[in-house]
């Protein structure tokens, strides 16, 4: 093969390669960024005992429950007919221990609205509706004796928290 025959395909390759490239266009559709959270109306699956205990423990202590502790706890909870009673006592027992990672009452009172939003996200994995926010804001402002423990107990024992 002579030199002329070698140059022609090489030139054609460069021409096609450069000609085939186009600059990537950045297309936007005008959609705003949104935080996607759970909708309460879609929570239709009930947590079983193990899920409930495990999620609750992790929520309060910010660490996973040990398998042995989980087994013992779910058996005891299952042994009581009124699950609300069992869960309330379990929770109350937790609140009587050290190691909980929860806000202080002072922190709650300092910024009630922020506390309400973070509590809904923490327990329900969703934002409060305006009605819910208004109810809790009003209730906490007019009831200075209400503590973080009371609010957390109400959430953890509520029906919505039993579902995911």
């Amino acid at each position, binding site marked *: 093969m002579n030199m002329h025959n070698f140059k022609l395909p090489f030139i054609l390759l460069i021409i096609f390669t450069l000609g085939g490239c186009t600059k990537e266009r950045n297309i936007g559709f005008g959609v705003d960024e949104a935080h996607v959270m759970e909708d309460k109306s879609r929570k239709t699956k009930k947590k079983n005992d193990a899920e409930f205990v495990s999620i609750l423990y992790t929520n309060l202590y910010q660490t996973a429950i040990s398998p042995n502790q989980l087994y013992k706890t779910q058996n*005891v909870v299952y*042994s009581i007919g009124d699950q609300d009673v069992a869960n309330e006592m379990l929770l109350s027992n937790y609140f009587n221990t050290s190691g909980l990672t929860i806000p202080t009452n002072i922190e709650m009172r300092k910024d009630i609205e922020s506390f309400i939003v973070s509590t809904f996200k923490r327990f329900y994995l969703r934002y409060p509706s305006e009605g819910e926010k208004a109810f809790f804001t009003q209730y906490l402002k007019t009831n200075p004796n209400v503590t973080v423990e009371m609010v957390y107990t109400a959430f953890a024992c509520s*029906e*919505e928290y039993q579902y995911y």
Partner: protein
Amino acid sequence: MNRKNFITKSGIALGGGILAPYILPSGRLFAKTGSLKADHVVLVMFAGGVRQQESVLGRYLEDSQGVSGAAGNIMPNLFEGNSPTKKIAYGTSVVGKPNGSEPIPKLLTNSMERSGLLFPEMRAQSAGHYVGLSTLLTGNAGTNQGLKVRPAYPTIFEYLRKHAGYKATDTWFIGNGIGNSTPLLNSSNHKDYGLAYGGNMFAAPVTFSNSGKEILGNAKTYSRSDLEPMYFMKNFLDQSFALTKDQISSVSNTDEEKSQIKDFIKSVFSKQQSGQLAMPPVTDNGDALNVMYAAEVLREFKPKMLAVNISGVDSCHSNFTGYLQNLHRADHITGWLWQYIQNNIPQMSGNTIFIVAPECGRNLTPNPILDQNDWVAYDHSDANALRVWGLMAGKGVPSLRVGGESQPVGRLTDIVPTIADVFGILDDVKSAGLIDPLAQSLYNRI
């Protein structure tokens, strides 16, 4: 609106406002009280598959092991009859004497047979435990009943709450564990009844175990002023979520009842700690502990209806000696519970009807498993396992023996209509059409 109309409508509205809070869940205005036979019923679900031969027939080792001259009654609190005199192995063990050679002294002055109503030959509808237990509580043979699910037909707890208007803490089931379907027996999943009318339940040996104490025993005792805001906020959240009826997953206690139950649990742990729990003289098996906790529930709540399940005699599958010992103890703790009610719960003493019935019998022929005494064991699957007895004692119960070995009278499905009869709701229960069509109140079998 003229004056006459105004007065008429105002009157109706006022009357409705006054009466509405008293309308029962069943729609009836007042609970039926005309034929109330007693204020309380205690049912002992006895005790894990009991052969007629060693129980009501008093045959001890004569039939089961072919030991001649070894007949005798090992259940002196329930039945009449002399104790065996040969090869005594059903009692407690004393140092220096053979295992089980000391019978437990009889507690009741008169056996329940002598003071009450005995149906010595009834028929069970199933030879299995769970169907038998659910039959005792539902009055339905429940042959299609699955395991690990709630009974398909309403329990007596639901009938009582729906038709007699009793509150949740008026009805209790004390289960002896969380195995199989035991903790599900406090309510059916029937669409017209269900957990909204279910009874309260403890699987007491688990609730009040060391694990129970660790997990629940350190719970705070909230004051009323602490609880009110919690329940207020919780109720707000629940209204917002609004479960449908078929999503209800727990018994419906009021806030006051919940507080009482929580205080009760803590009080039991406290009594455990200080050794103040009342207990039968011999408490060396799980059944005795379960009956002990049942007695605590009776003393605290004075329920209209309590059913307690014991099952120690099921050791008969592989250990006949253990079966005899547990049968003797089941008699002991049942007698103790009856005595405890009479002596320690004045609100129930003289005003309670006590019912005892096995959930099933046991086989006529043994399996080949030998125990430490070389005695054969018995399962429960043949026709003999459908032979059971029923015993009633207490307020207004006649002293009678109805039927006999060659003349069976009564079915296990009779227990629910009998309890319904005691509380004056027999017609409602029958009208619901969910019990065995052949079932009758035992009062009507006399």
